[in-house]
Every structure is written in C-alpha cells, then in structure tokens.
C-alpha cells in the first residue's frame, strides 16, 4: 500500500503540490486524474525521489521510502526515458540490474517481457529503430522488468493506437490481478472509466475527489438521463430540476439533472412529447464527474498551460 500524506511543493511562485494526500492499494488500478498543471507528474516524481517535496510524507507498507524500497518500484515517465541507441534487450537487462536483479535473471526477464509484448524479434534492434508504439511498449517493459510491487505510469496511453491501447490495458489488468499496486495518469477518461478500480482527481495540487469509481459516481448529486424518441416526436427537454448539458442527437436527448429529480415524472413528461423507445437514468460518466469536479477552472488552467 502506498500512502501520500499532505505533500507540498512549490517551484518559485508556482504551487505544484498543495497538501496532496491519497492512498493506492495492492491489486487495484488507480486512475490519477487532473487537468494539465494539476501536479500529477510532480506527485509521481516525488514517489521516486526525483522531486523533493517541501513537506509531507510518502509511505510504502507503512514505512518511509529508501533505496531498498525503490528497487521494488517501477516508473514509466510521460516522455520516453530510454537510451535511443541501445538494443532493447540490453536496455531492459541493464534497468533490471540497476534494481538488483542478477545478470542471468535480468536477461531472462528482459526476454520474457519482450516476448510478452510481441517484440521478441526486435530484441537486438536499437530502440530508436522502433515505432513510437513499440518504444512505448519497451518503456512499459522497463518499468516492469524487475517485477516491481508498485507501478507508476505517467500517461501510458498517450500516442498509442487502439491496438496498443488494448494491449496496454490488458497488461495493466493482469499485473493488477497479480497483486501489484498500480497508479497511472491519463486524460483519456473513458479509458480510465473502463479499467480503473479507484480514482483520484487532483486540481491545483490537492485531491478534490477520491474513492472507488462506484463511490464517486454514486456520490454525485447529478444524474444522467437519456431518452430516445421514435419519429415525429415533439422537441423535449427535462424541465425544472436544474437540467444542464442538454444535447439532442439522432432523435435522442441526453441531459444532466439533479439527483433529487423523479425519473417517473421525467419519463411521463417525455412520453407526452412522443413515442419513447428507450429511457435511461444513470449516475454521470467519469468525464462528467471530472468536469463537474474541476469546473470552469479547467479552461483557465489549460490556457495557462
């Protein structure tokens, strides 16, 4: 179990971490979300001692992190972090050995991972001759080659094609099922929603939502209503109940309404407008939760970069 407690870090006048706390548990995939500049990368780097927090504590299995502990961690930085002119297998062997795996075992593990990622034939090719997606696979292998208990991945899905996304997803699931603690950041919220067990949303250096995906969705005071109409229906929108985000597309109306609205009343009102083919009443999606949590501030932060 990894615990971050009240991390603070300033870069000059910029506050990167402002009392960030959260916990990641073994066997679970934690999605670490937040707008650009929220402090995700700084938090991840501080787990590995690459950035030194001004204050706060990071605990692994209840104790502070030292060199011996770090060897049980794997890190995949957002930008590629490999030697461009080194052969893939040599590279992975080297990274495993820096973490204390002995030579033969490191070599075997490197080959095993390349094989598992479908790169066995590229083992003796230099990294820079590989495509972007394959380099990303090698980067993932570099984080996993020493069999870490904690895996931290900064934007592992960025720049991958759908097949790459699927194989990355599969590996993350398998590794989590094997009992590892996994944290990853991503802006692809649909993807996070599909694979994560737990979610932490950070904004301006502190967590504003955290818990299991179900908890987060259930805790929202909004509900998503979706109604599909048959041909010839009159224009309809949920009235009252503070409806917003109303969209009309292909004869279907979706909207977010307050959780205190009565779905029976909404359905009755929709029926009066026309032939209702489908009606759904669900908690909001993760991206709706995210927008709700981060609010209008996102735009400002995005502009500031």
């Amino acid at each position, binding site marked *: 179990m990894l615990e971050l407690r009240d991390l603070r870090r300033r870069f000059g006048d910029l506050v990167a971490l402002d009392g960030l706390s959260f916990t990641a548990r073994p066997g679970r995939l934690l999605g670490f979300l937040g707008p650009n500049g929220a402090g995700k990368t700084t938090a991840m780097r501080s787990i590995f001692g690459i950035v*030194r*927090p*001004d204050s706060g504590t990071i605990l692994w299995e209840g104790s502070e992190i030292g*060199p011996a502990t*770090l060897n049980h*961690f794997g890190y995949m930085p957002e930008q590629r*972090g490999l030697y461009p002119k080194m052969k893939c297998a040599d590279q992975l062997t080297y*990274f495993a050995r*820096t973490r204390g795996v002995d030579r033969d075992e490191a070599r075997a593990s490197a080959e095993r991972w390349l094989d598992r990622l479908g790169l066995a034939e590229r083992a003796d090719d230099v990294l820079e001759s590989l495509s972007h997606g394959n380099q990303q696979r090698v980067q993932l292998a570099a984080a996993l080659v020493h069999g870490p208990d904690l895996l931290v991945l900064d934007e592992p899905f960025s720049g991958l094609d759908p097949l790459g996304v699927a194989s990355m997803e599969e590996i993350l699931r398998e590794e989590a099922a094997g009992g590892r603690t996994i944290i990853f950041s991503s802006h692809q919220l649909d993807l996070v929603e599909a694979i994560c067990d737990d979610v932490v949303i950070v904004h301006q250096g502190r967590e504003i939502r955290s818990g299991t995906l179900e908890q987060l969705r259930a805790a929202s005071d909004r509900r998503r209503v979706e109604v599909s109409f048959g041909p010839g229906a009159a224009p309809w929108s949920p009235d009252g109940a503070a409806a917003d985000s109303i969209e009309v597309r292909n004869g279907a109306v979706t909207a977010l309404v307050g959780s205190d609205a009565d779905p029976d009343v909404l359905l009755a009102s929709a029926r009066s407008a026309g032939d209702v083919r489908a009606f759904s009443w669900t908690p909001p999606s993760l991206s709706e939760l995210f927008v709700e949590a981060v609010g209008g501030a996102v735009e400002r932060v995005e502009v500031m970069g």
Partner: protein
Amino acid sequence: MTTPSFLDQVRLVAGREIRERGGSRSFKASTVITLLIVLALVIVPTWFDSDDPEEWTVAVVGSVPDTFAPALDAAAASQDATVEILELPTGSVTDADSLDEALEDADAVLVDGRVVTDDEVGAGLRSALSAAWVQSQLLQGLTDSGLDPAEAAAALEIPPVEFTTTDEADGNEDSGTREAAAFIGVIALFVAINTYGTWVLTGVLEEKSNRVVEVVISAIAPRALLAGKVLGIGLLGLLQLSVVAVVGLATAIAVGVTEVPTALVPAVASMVVWFVLGFAFYAVGYAAAGSPRARRARWPCSCSAPTSSRCSSSDRTPTASRR
C-alpha cells in the same frame, strides 16, 4: 533481488558506458582516425627529411696535389656524404661550352683553383671543398719547404673541436627528446581531456533531454551515476589514448624518428597520472554543468525536509562544489 551497493551501481553504469560507447561505430571510427593522424604525423616527415648519405660528384681539371682526393673524401665523410672525383685532362675545359659539358656529369668543377657550379653550391659541398683545398695546399706547401710528407701529414692530424651544451655536461643527454615528449604530451592531454570530457557532457545532456535519467535516477543514486559515467568514459579514453600512444611510439622507433624510449617512459607515466587527475576534475565539472537535475538531493520524503519557501537555492548544492 538484492539492493546494489554504491560500488555495484558505479560498476553497472561504468560497464554500460564502456560496452555501449566502446562498441559504437563512432568510437571505433574516432580511434582509427586518431591512429591514422598520429601515424601520418610520425611517418610523413621522414619522407622529406631523408637520412640517406648525399652523393657529390666533383670534376677536377688538370693536376691537383695527390693529397686533395683523400682530403675531400675525409671532409665529405664528416658530413655523411660520399664524393666521386672525375679527373679531366688539362685543357679540356677552356670555354663556357666545355664548362657546361663538364657540369652535366658533376656538381662542381675545380679548374685553375676555382670551383665552378651551375647553381648556388650547397653549404656541405662548399665547406668540404674548401677544407680539402686548404689541407692539400697546406700539405703541398709543407712538403715543398722540405718537410717529410709523412711528418707534414702528422702535423695536420688535428682532432676536430668538440661542441657540447651545459645540459649534456650535467648528464641530461636526452633533454631534447624529453622536451619534445612534454610538448606533445601537453597537447595530447589537452585534446584528450577535452574530448572525453565532452563525451561526459553530451552523455549527461542526452540522458537528461530524453528523460532516461528519470528512470535511471529512480534506481541509481545520482552520485553513482556520475561516478560510473566518469569512470567508464575515463577508462575508455585511457584505453584509446594508450592504443594511440603505443602504436605511435612503436612506429616512431621503427622508422627511426626517436631512439631513446627510456627517456619517454617517465614522460608517458606522468602523462597518465595527469590524465587521470585532469580528466576526473574536468569530467565532473562538465557533468555537473550538464545536469542540474542530477544534482538534487536524493531522499526527499521525510517530514523534516526544510520548509523554506524558495524551492531551489537551498537544496540544489552542486555536486562539484562538495568535493
């Protein structure tokens, strides 16, 4: 899985530098190119500075004293030259045409006590001819005035004056070689330290720019990374330098440019020491200049970390200044 010690980490990093860099095409190419340059520097001058004995041909018109020919031979020999004497009958050279004809076969023509050449005569031939002329005339004069020829010859048996310098008097007979070795050594050191120091700098910058350092630093202490890099590149540099030095020296001895390797041994030995010290100093400086990220303290996660509001000035003590 055990935690690698600091020395294990240094060894791993140094090993990677040596394998990857030493096996790279650019390292092999730079070794070959340096070797070619050194070989060219040693060998090419010998083509222009030939030690082969010079050969002179001197035509002598009419009779000269019998002692002239041996005197000229001796004078030529003292200048590492051999001389061939063509005897032309008296009266065979009377005008410009016949003179030119005689000069076809000879470098100089001695006629009626004059030496005629078609070009400016070389200093060696000039002094040999003068010496032989004076000696033979002197002998002739002494014999003419009644001295026994053998006695006259003995009287002219003068040992040449010897030239020496104070250095040689002190027993430093090879000071020239040593000065040359020191001069070449200083240039080689400068080039080597700069070259290999730049390797360290570019290596650090590369790791930093492609972020590989984030992965490495998450496992290896920054100091071990720095030490391993400097050590690996230093050993590789020393190897390259030794290969070039040994091949260069062997070639120099083989082609006879230098003969006294014993004089070079202390110079080469001190060069190695200075290379190690100089490289260590400048390489660490280069690395520190290239890697502000690697200079940060390693263990960040304690509650007692300083809470100073300015982030950088207090915790970025440059590695270089801590030595």
